[in-house]
């Protein structure tokens, strides 16, 4: 087993805030909302109760070559765009194919491909169902295609744990690198599921905000009048690498991935454990792996989806770990700007966390008009300074199924 530290050498993202990681970060810092009224005919056609979402700012099929794009579900298209950016940002590492791995997640998979093919089958019969249907809709399509594109032969793994998926992928990548299974891993997650079926289903379970007349202000984690999350889409990717490998090639190092924790609630298929035991254990596991104490933590990117019950549950979970100090740690709830990217959200928030450490600021949490006293995180519509000392930040993700995943990053 290797004892090397694991470092971040490249980042990429295609999100509701921008087609790249720097554009997304700039828009986040500027307080932009990525949420807008949907203009698709199907919103009216199916009388959807929720008429807005945070769509990708740049359609990925407009930046990929057409023969490549048409073999990929939009979820895999977003993944490839983000991963190409991260790979270029990392300086296109020279690595043996057998030492390059992929850990790339999705929450739902190729829902557009599946349901478009179902429509084709019903309207035109089986002869018209495209041969690429299954390889496009399978949940490992993004990981497999990234392996193909970048020549990664160590492994190409997909974890599916709903909204915890891509944080769990980062934890897996950390473990794979720590255990010596690869020298470099392309890790992250993707989702493109703003589809009438998912919109109807999430609305049916009362999980989505209904602020149809004011979509830009609908995602408001921590606000007393929050009423649900906002569907988002997109992908984010990180190039993770052993420190030896990164230093040997003179790579720039954004941050150190110092630990991760994954737990399960075994409480309810969709609701969080209201006492937050599973989430608190995931935080403690990540800190233990990092060899750090709760007192070392200087910033948290909260899961904070803007649902009435989820936000206070997360606060309670963190209070178990941090005690009263939780009220002093600068927290960002960036879904206020991005919406909820489901399987892509953890990787995106990891990218934001890394940039927060690098620039020593907690990015703003927009749309807080009146903060809920039951969610008294130190969140702000303005940037918060993280101060001058060593930085240790957490990014939390929790998913349907009772999945909890936490990653810890330290300043480089």
């Amino acid at each position, binding site marked *: 087993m290797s004892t090397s530290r694991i470092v971040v050498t490249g980042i990429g993202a295609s999100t509701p805030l921008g087609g790249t990681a720097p554009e997304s970060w700039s828009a986040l810092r500027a307080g932009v909302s990525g949420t807008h009224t949907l203009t698709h005919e199907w919103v009216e056609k199916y009388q959807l109760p929720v008429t807005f979402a945070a769509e990708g700012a740049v359609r990925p099929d407009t930046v990929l070559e*057409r*023969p490549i794009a048409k073999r990929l579900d939009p979820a895999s298209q977003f993944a490839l765009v983000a991963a190409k950016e991260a790979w270029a940002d990392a300086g296109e590492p020279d690595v043996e194919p057998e030492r390059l791995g992929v850990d790339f997640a999705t929450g739902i998979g190729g829902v557009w491909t599946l349901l478009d093919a179902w429509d084709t089958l019903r309207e035109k019969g089986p002869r018209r169902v*495209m041969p690429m249907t299954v390889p496009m809709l399978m949940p490992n399509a993004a990981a497999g295609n990234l392996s193909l594109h970048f020549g990664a032969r160590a492994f190409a793994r997909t974890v599916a744990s709903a909204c915890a998926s891509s944080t769990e992928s980062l934890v897996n990548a950390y473990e794979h690198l720590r255990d010596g299974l690869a020298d470099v891993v392309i890790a992250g997650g993707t989702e493109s599921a703003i589809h009438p079926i998912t919109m109807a289903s999430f609305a049916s379970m009362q999980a989505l905000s209904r602020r149809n007349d004011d979509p830009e202000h609908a995602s408001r984690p921590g606000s007393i009048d929050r009423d649900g999350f906002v569907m988002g889409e997109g992908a984010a990717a990180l190039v993770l690498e052993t420190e030896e490998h990164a230093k040997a090639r003179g790579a720039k190092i954004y941050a150190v991935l110092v630990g991760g924790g994954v737990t399960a609630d075994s409480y309810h298929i969709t609701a969080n454990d209201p006492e937050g035991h599973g989430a608190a254990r995931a935080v403690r596991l990540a800190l233990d792996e990092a060899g750090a104490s709760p007192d070392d933590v200087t910033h948290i990117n909260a899961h904070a989806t803007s649902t009435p019950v989820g936000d206070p549950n997360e606060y309670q979970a963190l209070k178990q770990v941090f005690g009263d100090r939780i009220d002093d740690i600068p927290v960002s709830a960036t879904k206020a700007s991005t919406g909820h990217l489901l399987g892509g959200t953890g990787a995106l928030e990891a990218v934001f966390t890394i940039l927060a450490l690098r620039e020593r600021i907690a990015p703003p949490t927009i749309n807080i008009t009146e903060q809920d006293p039951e969610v008294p995180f130190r969140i702000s519509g303005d940037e918060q300074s993280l101060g001058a000392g060593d930085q240790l930040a957490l990014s939390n993700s929790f998913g349907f199924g009772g999945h909890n995943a936490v990653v810890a990053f330290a300043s480089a």
Partner: protein
Amino acid sequence: MALTNDEVLAGLAELITDETGISADEVALEKSFTDDLDIDSISMMTIVVNAEEKFGVTIPDDEVKNLKTVGDAVTFITSHQA
């Protein structure tokens, strides 16, 4: 109204370009799908599905393996148009 060989060739070239990115100029009657155009089996089946839709013909699975060249496909389509 039946299409001419040239019209079918042009239409088929569009489908091949769309699927593979190969320039329409490269798509000529004597070109082999596999040896010259490097089209794999799954792309070939995608082109077949799209050709059936575009030209209103049925290309049986058993027949696809006989379509070695672009010319074979053009001949099959023109001779089986409704």
